[in-house]
């Protein structure tokens, strides 16, 4: 009798542990080989055949197509440089320089990878349309209210995700160091 209860207990606990761990890793998007520069994290191996099983499972579940290594690299940010969550009700400033790339795009999504509705129908910037200061530096305001200059509307949603995609860039799988940056800084200015 004790053996029976013991086995039942073990099996139920094992199923809970196993499925729970799978759920947590796949919803959080755990993957190996992350390259983090400031607020930005990329998984360059996810765009090649060296993709790890966790990233494969995550991609299969969400239905996205990772950017191929010969095409470019995608950096994701879910918080600013000091760890504040990217809240659409606050204003954030993205400033600085970007690593070498032929083109880049910056896009704002909600937590599930959908674009966010806004009045001017703007969901991001490309390197060609950004307004720069002298010396090639730039500043982008991300917030719910219109700003002069480079304004990226966040639609006031609770949590947004920024994706910086570098196309045709020397940043590859072979040479991964944080010195490759600099990626632009992300800082929170004010919250309404």
């Amino acid at each position, binding site marked *: 009798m004790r053996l029976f209860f013991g086995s039942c*207990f*073990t099996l139920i606990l094992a*199923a809970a542990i*196993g499925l729970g761990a*799978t759920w947590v890793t796949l919803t959080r998007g755990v993957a190996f080989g992350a390259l983090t520069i400031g607020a930005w994290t990329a998984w360059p191996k996810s765009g090649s055949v060296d993709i790890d099983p966790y990233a494969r499972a995550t991609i299969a*579940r969400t239905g996205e*197509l990772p950017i191929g290594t010969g095409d470019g690299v995608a950096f994701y940010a879910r918080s600013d440089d000091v760890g504040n969550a990217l809240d659409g009700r606050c204003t954030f400033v993205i400033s600085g320089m970007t690593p070498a790339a032929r*083109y880049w*795009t910056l896009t704002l999504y909600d937590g599930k990878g959908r*674009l966010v509705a806004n009045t001017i129908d703007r969901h991001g910037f490309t390197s060609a349309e950004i307004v720069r200061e002298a010396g090639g530096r730039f500043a982008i305001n991300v917030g719910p209210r219109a700003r002069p200059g480079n304004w990226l509307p966040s639609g006031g949603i609770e949590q947004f995700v920024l994706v910086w995609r570098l196309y045709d860039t020397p940043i590859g799988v072979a040479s991964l160091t944080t010195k490759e940056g600099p990626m632009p800084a992300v800082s929170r200015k004010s919250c309404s």
Partner: protein
Amino acid sequence: MIRLPLWILGALLLGGIVHLSTVLAMPRAATQDAYSRLAQLTPVNAVVPLAAPSAQNTTMPFMDPAFAVVVCRYDLSSGALKLSAPLSQAYTSVTFYTRNSVAYYAINDRAAGRRAIELDLMTPEQHAQMPEEEDVTAADRLIIESPTRRGLIVLRALAPEPNLMVMARRALAGTQCRIEPVPQ
């Protein structure tokens, strides 16, 4: 009562096995992966433009709205595939995905060199069966081996500014992907 830690240890080990096997099985079990989503929208071995992502509607999550996208969902069962794509003015890339969304090859316009990207896609068996002299004449064509029989070719053309999207779409409209039946 001395047995309880043993039962828990067993549960942990078993739980680890459950965890690893579910992670490994996920790509096969997923019903909403990119290929399944596109299978509902695209015929096989044909070039289909994807609708631009918007706040209301997106074919796949995390699509780059600055790009025009066309997809060729391929099946190499009846022969190798020939892909030709004209280049747009700004930036064009071609990425090859397996049935399970693994990007196994990607090339951009600069790496491709000329004014058009021309590629032959085949399975390793089809490549091995190719007559040798043909291999020589085909030296200037890029041959790519697909690890899986089915998969996706995704072509992306950048519109550096929103009003250039029409041109990017027009450039990709000339893309062709067709099966060349195996000569017996």
